[in-house]
């Protein structure tokens, strides 16, 4: 049942908060690890019940709540959200795993992490606009606290910036939702009640624009991204994993579910613009990343670029590009998590994140060889080297969108090249080179610190060589979403003509 994914973390958070103060941070960490592990297993068991061939919502739950407001407790999962729900449970587990054994105020810390996990799960599962909004706003406070209490330098500035931006994003989304229900005169905020509306194009465009900006802040898309480098850099490693791995995906998910899902006609009108926006985001993020000298900031900027691919996939609106976009959300979540974990470890052991100071960590005796090797893998996965999870997702997006937006797609391919540039800069400066023996007295890397990265690396590799485990979940849902767009709109014409010309060319062969 889906509710478990929401309420078990909440109950766990309350239980943790009630623990006596005598329990050590280490014990609380283990307790949380077991709890989140249980949640992860539960979410994986959903996969067994999930029907691959049903495009509509599955495992729905309904509980009347404030019916007069149109706010009911409605949950459901489909191909768009199932992988993200699992990603959420998994990365929460990894984030708890990658937390230091001794943190200040452990009960509050782990409670907040659990609340974040439950809130995000709720947002992914909610099938009522207001309910989604509530969950969306709910995780704002715990994240704010996680950044401002356990963050690094400039944490208060970053946390406040995050709070303001996210609050603005929430406000815009609420305006969009209210406007939609108001204008359509729908009886409730249920997703099913407003889907398939037939508003005039102008209102659709305005509402979609509001939602795009609202979710675009969360994703984030250029130019609404400046909270991201500050926040990701100031956040501690587990918080950064949750922020970059899951929270950003909530924005992308929102764009697909509520932007594309509720305004398909306006979406197809805006699609060329969105694709261009995506390409700009990709190139901008990559270019900004190249100029960074702080490795955590560099990884943070890489996220800006990679989220652009998702928008490109959505804008192109072919089944292939949509499947690629959903896969990219998962792949990017995993890759960002491993990168943040490793960068956090480097900072912890070496004591700096500065590219100009770091050197030669691949040294087998006195450096951090395993961490460096995994960093190479993470960086290469992010740069889209085949055999790792990032490649297939990006490739599906590119192949799916090439027929619709060739120029933008090729620009995004250039973006992958630039990704390789900054990761080579990162690897060359941190892992390669001569280790300065005078400073090379690094603390030993414990096994417990390696395990999260090893697990992530294994999954990234596994999904890279066996991509059907990554991509197959979303196929039927995205096919339905694509067919929702009326075939008279421009992108579809391009696709069909492209298909026809392909067929025409293939006829002589037979």
């Amino acid at each position, binding site marked *: 049942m889906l509710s478990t994914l929401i309420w078990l973390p909440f109950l766990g958070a309350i239980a943790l908060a009630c623990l006596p103060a005598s329990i050590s941070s280490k014990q609380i960490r283990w307790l949380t690890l077991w709890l989140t592990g249980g949640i992860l297993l539960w979410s994986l068991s959903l996969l067994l019940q999930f029907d691959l061939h049903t495009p509509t919502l599955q495992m729905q739950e309904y509980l009347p709540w404030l019916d007069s407001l149109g706010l009911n407790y409605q949950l459901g999962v489909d191909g768009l959200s199932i992988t993200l729900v699992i990603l959420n449970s998994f990365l929460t587990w990894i984030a708890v795993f990658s937390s230091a054994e001794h943190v200040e105020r452990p009960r509050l810390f782990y409670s907040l992490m659990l609340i974040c996990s439950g809130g995000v799960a709720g947002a992914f599962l909610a099938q009522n606009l207001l309910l989604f909004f509530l969950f969306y706003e709910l995780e704002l406070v715990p994240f704010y606290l996680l950044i401002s209490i356990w963050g690094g330098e400039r944490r208060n500035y970053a946390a406040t910036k995050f709070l303001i931006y996210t609050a603005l994003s929430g406000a815009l989304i609420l305006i969009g939702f209210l406007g939609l229900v108001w204008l359509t005169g729908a009886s409730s905020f249920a997703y099913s009640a407003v889907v398939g509306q037939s508003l005039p194009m102008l209102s659709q465009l305005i509402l979609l624009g509001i939602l795009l900006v609202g979710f675009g802040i969360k994703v984030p898309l250029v130019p609404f991204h*400046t909270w991201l480098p500050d926040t990701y850099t100031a956040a501690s490693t587990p918080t950064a994993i949750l922020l970059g791995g899951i929270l950003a995906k909530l924005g992308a998910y929102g764009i697909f579910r509520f932007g594309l899902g509720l305004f398909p006609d306006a979406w197809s009108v805006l699609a060329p613009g969105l694709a261009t926006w995506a390409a700009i985001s990709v190139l901008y993020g990559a270019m900004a990343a190249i100029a960074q000298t702080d490795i955590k900031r560099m990884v943070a900027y890489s996220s800006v670029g990679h989220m652009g691919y998702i928008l490109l996939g959505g804008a192109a609106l072919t089944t292939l590009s949509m499947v690629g976009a959903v896969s990219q959300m998962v792949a990017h979540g995993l890759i960002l998590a491993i990168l943040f974990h490793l960068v956090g470890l480097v900072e912890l052991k070496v004591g700096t994140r500065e590219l100009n100071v770091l050197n030669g960590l691949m040294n087998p005796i006195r450096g951090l060889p395993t961490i460096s090797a995994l960093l190479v893998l993470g960086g290469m996965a992010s740069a889209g080297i085949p055999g790792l999870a990032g490649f297939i997702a990006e490739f599906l997006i590119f192949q799916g969108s090439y027929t619709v937006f060739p120029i933008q797609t090729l620009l995004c391919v250039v973006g992958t090249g630039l990704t390789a540039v900054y990761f080579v800069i990162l690897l060359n400066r941190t892992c390669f080179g001569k280790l300065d023996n005078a400073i090379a007295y690094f603390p030993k890397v414990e096994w417990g610190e390696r395990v999260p990265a090893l697990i992530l690396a294994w999954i990234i590799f596994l999904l890279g060589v066996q991509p059907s485990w990554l991509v197959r979940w979303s196929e039927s849902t995205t096919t339905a979403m694509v067919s929702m767009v009326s075939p008279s709109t421009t992108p579809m014409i391009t696709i069909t003509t492209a298909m026809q010309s392909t067929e025409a060319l293939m006829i002589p062969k037979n």
Partner: protein
Amino acid sequence: MEQFFAQTAWLIPSYPLMGMVLSMLWLPSITPLTGPRPAGYLNLGMTGLACLHGAIAFHATWQQAPQYIAIPWLQIAELDLTIPIEVSSITLGAILVVTSINLLAQIYAVGYLEMDWGWARFYALLALFEAGMCALALCDSLFFSYVILEILTLGTYLLIGFWLNQSLVVTGARDAFLTKRVGDLVLLMGVLALYPLAGTWDFQELAIWAETANVNPTTATLVGLALIAGPMGKCAQFPLHLWLDEAMEGPVPSTILRNSVVVATGAWVLIKLEPVLALSPTVLSVAIAIGSITAVGGTLISIAQVDVKRALSYLTSAYMGIVFIAVGAQLSNAAFLMILTHAVAISLLVMSSGSIVLNSITQDLTQMGGLWRRRPVSGLSYLVGVAGLIALPPLGGFWSMLALLDGVWRDRPIIAVILLLVNALAAFAVTRVFVLMFGGQPKPMTERSPENGWLVTLPMTILAGFVLHLPLVLQTLSLLPDWAVLNKDVALVLTWSSLSGCSLAALVYYGPIAKPIRLPWQALQNLLAYDFYTSRIYGVSVVGSVDRISRLVDWGDRYLVDGLVNMVGLASLFGGEALKYGNSGKTQSYVLTIALGIILITLLMTWSSLTNLSLVIGG
């Protein structure tokens, strides 16, 4: 029994892969206990098995129809990514070449890297290359070829960066990765663009499609140009040739493989793509142009190098340029033959020069000399390599060059002249290296230079034997032309061009001219010695502009985009400060504010219902 090996031949890449995975055990923690050597021996054994399997399977499939195997990988929406595998005598022949050169290079490495502590990493990477190349030979799909090429690009980065604490190594690895990646990504653009046109990525089907395809010429040209970019990077063709020379910072045993078979991966894909490239005459001309520039430029630059490894690496670029010319002239068989003869000959040259470098402790040709009497085995091997590489009958290079020259002799005299010129220049280059190393009087660095142990010498002599026997092998495989149809004029001219190159070099470098030789135009000599200043041009143009743009973006991000946001934040902060003074702290004023607010809201809410005005109208 043989059939069993033929049927399971598609599993050959698994041998080196297994070796690679097992050597990972030696990476972190076992090495201090056992030393790094077991990882090397393990890989050596695995390569031996792969070679043996390949040989048996090759024998079994000889003169049989090719078998096609399809392994489903991913099916999503309208895209069907099935791995098509072709098991035929050609693909197994390629595997045989790859695995045997690998086997020899790995034995060589046991001797060459005797004192090195990083065996596990080195052999794991060699195994990755071996697996990748075997897979590439078997794979019959452009998409999966692209996948393999990309993975090998990563392998190149790690392999060149093997001695990672030297700064030249680090920059070499970086440049190799980025240059190859540029080629790969343009190839990816071609891959993306080709599918909507052809509806397939299988080489077989692409060839059938290309016969009847009716594609817009501009599109065909653009796609074709994108498709040759990947092989250009892999084969170190102008202007993506920079990396091969810098890659010489890596260990010699990996150079043996890189200069012979790794660069050939690009050529292999290029040959398979030939039917698609032929859709546009422009693309073929471009391939010929690139190949010619690289071939002539590469041989000239090679003559101007003082580093023996670099001199040989530019020759590799040049011979890959000849393959480009062959593909551009649509002479696929000559191209295949050229890849084969070049691979065995150049790896022999690298092996023998490496064996000199190993215990003369210098790569600088100006510090060498007089080694003939001290190093007869290496010297003889080098000479065999020379004879195998350039067009000297009856060894391999002659036949491949002859096949190529024969094809262009009548219709394209300019290409024929270029080929003869390149052959003469290459002959000059290899002879020059020979004279500088082995001729003349010993110098301080070469006074004490005995032959190496058997681990280095044996693989070298075995390979020399193979180079000598290559014509017989070709004869058995009936790849040599009949005596009756042999164009004797061409053969004669070709032989003369080789001989004149060799004798000119011998004359110049044995002769009384003062060494090192100075050209009358110092600028020209520098131009060649510094590789047309390519790295500097890149530094100013591509690297410089990316650097500048990224700084600009970063500045804009910090001060414009973020600055605007911070200004808004600051303004609201001031606003809040100002509002603060409006609060008196008296309960009455708060109540008044609340009351006013409620009235306002009520008014607003009733307004719409009272006037019965729906805002929908407004919307």
